[in-house]
């Protein structure tokens, strides 16, 4: 089980997202404000995209493994969040 996740694209993607956020976030602290803002928005974009992408990736992995019920639950999370955002927005 551990080895499966360690070798998985999920682990590699999360590691990449973590290091990108850390490096860009650190660089943003040293840059002039006009450049730092753009770098900062990229970091925030990654922080938002990472958990959503992770859940969708998990849904895909579980679907392929035949665990359709839990794949459905995982795929439903972005839908519930979106529906909630629309409801709250209205």
């Amino acid at each position, binding site marked *: *089980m551990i080895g499966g996740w360690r070798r998985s694209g999920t682990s590699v993607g999360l590691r990449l997202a973590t290091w990108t956020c850390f490096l860009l976030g650190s660089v*943003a602290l040293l840059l002039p404000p006009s450049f730092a803002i753009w770098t900062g928005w990229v970091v925030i974009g990654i922080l938002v995209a990472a958990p*959503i992408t992770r*859940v969708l990736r998990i849904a895909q992995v579980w679907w392929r*493994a035949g665990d359709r019920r839990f794949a459905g*639950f995982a795929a439903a999370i972005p839908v519930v969040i979106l*529906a909630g955002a629309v409801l709250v927005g209205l």
Partner: protein
Amino acid sequence: MTADALLLGALALLTATLGVVGGLGGAILFVPALVLVGVAPAEAAPLGMLMVAAGSLGAAVPQLEEGLLNHRIGVVGELGASLGVSVGVLVSGLLTTTALTWTLAGAALAAAGALGLRSGLRNKPDPRTDEASIGEHLGRLAGAYWLAGAVIPYRVRRLSLGLAMLTLTGGLAGVTGTSGGYLKTPILSEVMHVPVKVAAATVTFMVGITAATGLVAYAAQGRLDVGAGMVAVVGGLVGGRLGALVQVRVSPVIARRVLGAVLVVVAILLVLR
């Protein structure tokens, strides 16, 4: 870098570490701490959300590779909590903040009591399980984790009650604008019988989703201070990673005691805030 930025970064690092070790998220400690050092509450809340998102991301890889977190429990729990958050935000205008704050503080104290009163380990090593079974199990809300040279299997109990409580927690979180992580971990651990270390790691995954949703809302409202936010992000990433490394080494009994003590602090902060 200014002294203010260094203080912000240090607070983010410390609260992210505690947040990941205890499965609290950490905003419940970070936001009041920022307010205490002079940051306006309206600016502190989005910074707290950035710190939680960064802490969750920083902890993700170590927790994934140690087989501590259980995605299936997290996904099912977060579905209920997300539904609750939407309902909570919708009804937030109908309820008084004071009554809710006292409710949350009472819930935090009750959770601290439940964690502190229990002694020993609920889930015992099973000689029939081996290292290959560590992690989460296909098609079930169950798994196994590694503890002091032994494999400890576990499975979720009282699912309906736990999900109802997680949904209610989501509702309270939606009303009060917190991630509710500090209540989710005791619910998973004490109601659903998930080992506290697995519960904390799983809730760290769950609050990452909650924080992403919150960040979208704050960005839409134009409330994100990107400059100060990067200090919180860097502190949160380092603290999240550090917290995950500490979490692997700490014993479940100590983790439960620390979580209980932090929950008492949370209850006091809620009332003072």
